[in-house]
């Protein structure tokens, strides 16, 4: 087990270093150097320019600059934003709970609908239910989610007036920040109605962000389930006279879940990419919107830090899924 863990982790290190190399290169490949960027259109005189470059360590050889960048990362230093002059890492983690809350709700929706839908489609293979579920899931998979968000706003916010259009909570309420998660904070606050308001703000963005993972989970569950349902032990369980639902939910689901869990883990990347679009449409103050705003404002240190942190998160989650996979499935652990 220990050697398995070590092996998995050692594969991730070059990937991590590669990502740091990429983000390091990013800021140097953009036309104009950081000092010119900070100065903006006002320009800067050559002497001051050289001074500032030296101050930021940008006059040193690239290899040394990279070393500084790398050691900085391990000390939690991802540079400072050009626009707000705040440390990038602090900005990121101030906004991150909002994204985490949204992504968490989205994945909960995706699993709680996608899993049963996939099981249903597999059990009713070739019937109308199967075709409906698969048709809907392919549509969901093909959905441009930014348009889907606009459509839902058009229907539920503009047409029916059920949900608000943007933000995390109505401006009427003042909620003290305890955890950073609006659902929890508004629940803890004394203001009546704050929690309801937070839920109403959260519901549409969560549905939009959940759409693609839901479709993927439903498709994966169906095919994993079909595979398992063909096995002999399922036939035996049925022959013993166990009810179909019991066989499906107890005997089959357990084994079918393994590939599904992997797919759920892989959705973290999809959620992060989706968050950029969803947060933009619903003005959700999370890291996705912040990344995009940073690109518009040419705040490259923030872009660089954001990309690095998000990809590290994706790497860590994938590693966790990988290890988990080995834990639940001994064949994988011992084969490698």
């Amino acid at each position, binding site marked *: 087990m220990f050697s398995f863990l070590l092996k998995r982790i050692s594969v991730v290190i*070059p*990937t991590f270093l*590669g*990502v740091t190399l*990429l983000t390091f290169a*990013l800021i140097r*490949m*953009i036309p104009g150097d950081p000092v010119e960027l900070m100065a903006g259109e006002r320009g800067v005189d050559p002497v001051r320019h050289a001074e500032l470059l030296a101050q930021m360590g940008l006059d040193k050889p690239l290899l040394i600059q990279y070393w500084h960048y790398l050691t900085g990362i391990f000390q939690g230093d991802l540079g400072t934003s050009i626009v707000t002059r705040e440390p990038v890492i602090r900005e990121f983690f101030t906004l991150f709970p909002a994204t985490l809350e949204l992504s968490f709700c989205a994945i909960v929706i995706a699993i709680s609908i996608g899993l049963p839908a996939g099981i249903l489609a597999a059990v009713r293979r070739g019937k109308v239910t199967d075709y409906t579920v698969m048709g809907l899931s*392919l*549509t969901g*998979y*093909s*959905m*441009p989610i*930014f*348009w*889907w968000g*606009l*459509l839902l*706003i*058009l229907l539920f916010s*503009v047409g029916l007036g059920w949900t608000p259009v943007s933000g995390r909570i109505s401006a009427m309420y003042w909620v003290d920040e305890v955890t950073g998660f609006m659902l929890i904070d508004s629940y803890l606050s004394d203001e009546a109605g704050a929690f309801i308001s937070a839920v109403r703000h959260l519901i549409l963005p969560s549905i939009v962000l959940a759409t693609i993972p839901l479709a993927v989970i439903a498709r994966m569950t169906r095919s994993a389930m079909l595979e398992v349902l063909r096995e002999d032990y399922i036939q035996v369980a049925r022959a013993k006279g166990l009810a179909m639902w019991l066989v499906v939910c107890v005997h089959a689901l357990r084994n079918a879940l393994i590939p599904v869990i992997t797919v759920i883990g892989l959705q973290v*990347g*999809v959620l*992060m*990419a989706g968050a*950029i*679009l969803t947060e*933009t*449409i619903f003005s959700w103050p999370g890291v996705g919107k912040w*990344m*995009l705003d940073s*690109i*518009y404002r040419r705040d*490259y240190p923030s*872009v660089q830090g954001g*990309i690095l942190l*998000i*990809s590290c998160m*994706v*790497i860590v989650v*994938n590693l966790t899924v990988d290890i988990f996979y080995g834990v639940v499935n001994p064949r994988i652990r011992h084969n490698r």
Partner: protein
Amino acid sequence: MAEQLELAVNGDIAPPGPFREFWNYFSSNRGALIGFGLIVLVLSAALFANFLTPHSPYEQYRDYILTPPAWQHGGTWRFPLGTDEVGRDIFTRLIYGGRLSLFIGMMVVSLSLAIGTLIGLVSGYAKGMTDTLIMRAMDIIMALPSLLLALAIVTILGPGLINASIAIAITYLPHYVRITRASVIAETSKDYVIASRVSGAGVMRLIFITILPNCMAPLIVQASLGFSNAILDAAALGFIGLGAQPPSPEWGSMLANALEFIQRAWWVVTFPGLMILLTVLAFNLMGDGLRDALDPKMKL
């Protein structure tokens, strides 16, 4: 039955040719046929856009700003799907937009297919250090969410249709590299490749003429699915203002400031997205059909 026997006796029955066989499998999949039909429709609309509409996608009819679709009160058949905020005909922009989306799809797929296959061939054939280096590089690209990586690349290259296509093509490279590498490794140890090597075929001949044709099936499937992803990602980049730039009638960028009109002009919001959805869905349906028809494991 009797007819078939007769045919067989007369020697007229022959195993179906590869294309015939493919078409039989493909056409038995109704979804794939619908997808194929939709693609033909979008493609011909894009090709013959000049003949299908009297308007130009850029012409602004200042007297007809935000005209609703023809069937709604206040609409006119001159603009069947209504006009946008500066009075451009939406129907015209949609069919011209098809050109852009299909062009992006084509460009992304051919770029990532050509380069990805080449890298995959090298990686699978060379093995050792080269292989490890290439695969680690691909792991890095895979570790980043595709839209995020595309954003990073567009940040470097600057916004625009071509740059967006290049960025998206890079994010899809690993898929092609991995598929090609896996099939090259599987094929290289087979007898026909060894036979070819023993009879003196050079490296180039081995890679491109002996091995490559036998790796094509999964690549074709991936390319078809890649088309839909490319269109989707390009539209997303257009939507956030980093892909195609206004006033070009790209579907995603047509939605870029649709949020402003959501209260008063539903048609500005609805139609471009519907086109994206239908086109992407069509390519996905066709991709699924291609996979079923080309993957020998599914035929058993």
